[in-house]
């Protein structure tokens, strides 16, 4: 990756009794999730990137532009081409929704004309047309957050920072906003750094992930790789899963099933009608993958794929999580399989062993056409 295509951040320092020492490099495209438990310093990192907080020796370079470096360069927040969505929408109470949206939009006709993000487009994308003339006080939590996202987008940022935009919302509002975020990711070529402590949001939205713990970065890279890295906490979590990129090959309307190809194999999953050539996010939970030494006989399980055991780690005294590389030669995408130590030993499994992975359930993220 060249400098122009990355986001580089490194922040070190003490804030009260909390010490932060976090550094990562992420590609300046797609969604990068900053993931970790509450209090691990995610928000501080985001605030440092935005320049809302200043740690003296910090480094922040976005797409080749230096926002802060240890030599003392520091661009004040209002000069950084970023959008920031706070945990609470924080709309300006004295302005209507429309004027909130326009607050940070570039002014002057010339600029508006060449602007990439048009007002109408954002309003349509976020479904806030009916709210434009209302006061922020009369919006629901979900509506408010959508307006806040629109307001950030209309500044035409080069980087969008989102600090747990869903955490202050109830279940229904969350479900209402997630599809909008997916649309945002798919329609705008805008890099997003997204803070969350909910793995479900990571699995639905993120392309890359930066894992944080106690003020430190313990791993960063493509989501798929980190999910299947047994040395990281994601793979041994109770709800561990992997997210793969699947390409739709065929749709069988008689049974409502799609066939998707992933690296090293293909999967069959229930789905609404979908057309070949579409990319879909595929989620496979570790607990849904079992292993067999030979191809099983007749079975209700649709997905049985030849694979190899790449590595295995004990979760506790009685359970093992194995990383399974698809394909007879083990060069394809990786799945996780959670099995008992007894099964592990009974099958005589070891790293490099040839197995058949039986996948009980494959979940597909909704396609673009289904978002309405």
């Amino acid at each position, binding site marked *: 990756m060249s400098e122009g295509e990355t986001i580089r951040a490194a922040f070190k320092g003490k804030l009260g009794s909390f010490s932060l020492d976090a550094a990562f490099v992420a590609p300046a495209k797609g969604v990068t999730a900053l993931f970790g438990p509450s209090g691990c310093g995610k928000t501080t990192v985001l605030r440092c990137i935005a320049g809302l907080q200043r740690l003296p020796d910090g480094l922040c370079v976005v797409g080749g532009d230096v926002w802060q470096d240890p030599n003392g360069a520091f661009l004040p927040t*209002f000069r950084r081409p970023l959008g920031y969505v706070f945990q609470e929408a924080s709309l300006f109470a004295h302005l209507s929704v429309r004027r909130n949206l326009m607050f940070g939009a570039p002014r002057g006709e010339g600029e508006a004309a060449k602007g990439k993000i048009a007002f109408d487009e954002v309003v349509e994308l976020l479904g806030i047309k009916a709210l434009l003339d209302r006061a922020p006080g009369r919006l629901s939590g979900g509506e408010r957050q959508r307006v806040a996202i629109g*307001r950030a987008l209309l500044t035409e940022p080069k980087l969008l920072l989102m600090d747990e935009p869903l955490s202050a919302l109830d279940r229904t509002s969350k479900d209402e906003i997630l599809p909008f975020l997916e649309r945002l990711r798919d329609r705008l070529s805008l890099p997003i750094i997204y803070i969350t402590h909910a793995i479900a949001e990571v699995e639905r939205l993120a392309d890359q992930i930066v894992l944080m713990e106690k003020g430190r970065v313990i791993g960063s890279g493509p989501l798929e790789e980190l999910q299947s890295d047994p040395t990281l906490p994601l793979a041994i979590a109770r709800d561990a899963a992997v997210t793969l990129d699947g390409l739709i090959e065929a749709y069988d309307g008689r049974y409502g099933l799609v066939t998707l190809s992933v690296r090293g194999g293909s999967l069959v999953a229930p789905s609404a009608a979908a057309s070949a050539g579409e990319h879909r996010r595929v989620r496979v939970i570790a607990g849904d993958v079992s292993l067999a030494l030979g191809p099983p006989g007749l079975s209700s399980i649709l997905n049985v794929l030849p694979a190899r055991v790449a590595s295995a780690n004990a979760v506790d005294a009685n359970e093992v999580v194995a990383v399974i590389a698809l394909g007879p030669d083990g060069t394809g995408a990786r799945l996780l399989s959670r099995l008992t130590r007894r099964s592990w030993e009974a099958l005589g499994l070891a790293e490099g062993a040839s197995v058949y992975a039986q996948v009980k359930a494959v979940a597909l993220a909704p396609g673009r056409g289904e978002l309405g």
Partner: protein
Amino acid sequence: MPGIPSEIWVPIQLTIELAAITTLSLLVVATPLAWWLARSRAAWKEAVAAVVSLPMVLPPTVLGFYLLIALGPDGPGGAIASLWGARTLAFTFTGLVIASIVASMPFVVQPIRNAFAAIGDRPLEVAATLRASPRRAFWTVALPLASPGLLTGAVLGFAHTVGEFGVILMIGGNIPGRTRVMSTAIFDFVETMRWREANMLAGGMVVFAFAVILLMILIEKRFARARG
């Protein structure tokens, strides 16, 4: 105004003029001061706040005494007055304005400072992430959000200036047509046993005070409703 003797009408006019000029000057001076008191992290800012609040606790005669010295021929006020050939600012309308600004300052600074503090950092951070310079954030976010506090400050400043007596008497000397305002005129009428005139002015003040407070309550209610 027909029907009202000038010895009553003139003090009323003078009072309104004094209170209006004082209030406008106070908004200009007190707003940046309140902003600084609300946002600065300087350790000594509370000392400044205490100095600003002094007129609230000092006896008006004490405040008036030192203002008299400051505005007199040997004080800075005298030096300023010499710019246009006068000898002193004491016993002049200008002197009254300066004294009223000092005496009413805490009543204006306090509510504005509280309003700025109540906004918190967040709206200003949001403004910064929306490309607003600190100056633009102040004018388009902080000031409108603090407007109920500014309004309260203005009303309190106006009302307090109208009601100020001790300081005015010390600085102004109760000169008819120049420094005799309503509060000192009432005092004068009472001293000379003219109860009817005293009653007209005092009664007017009661009505005025009632109207001011009612207006403030109504405006605050409207603000609260608009913000939902």
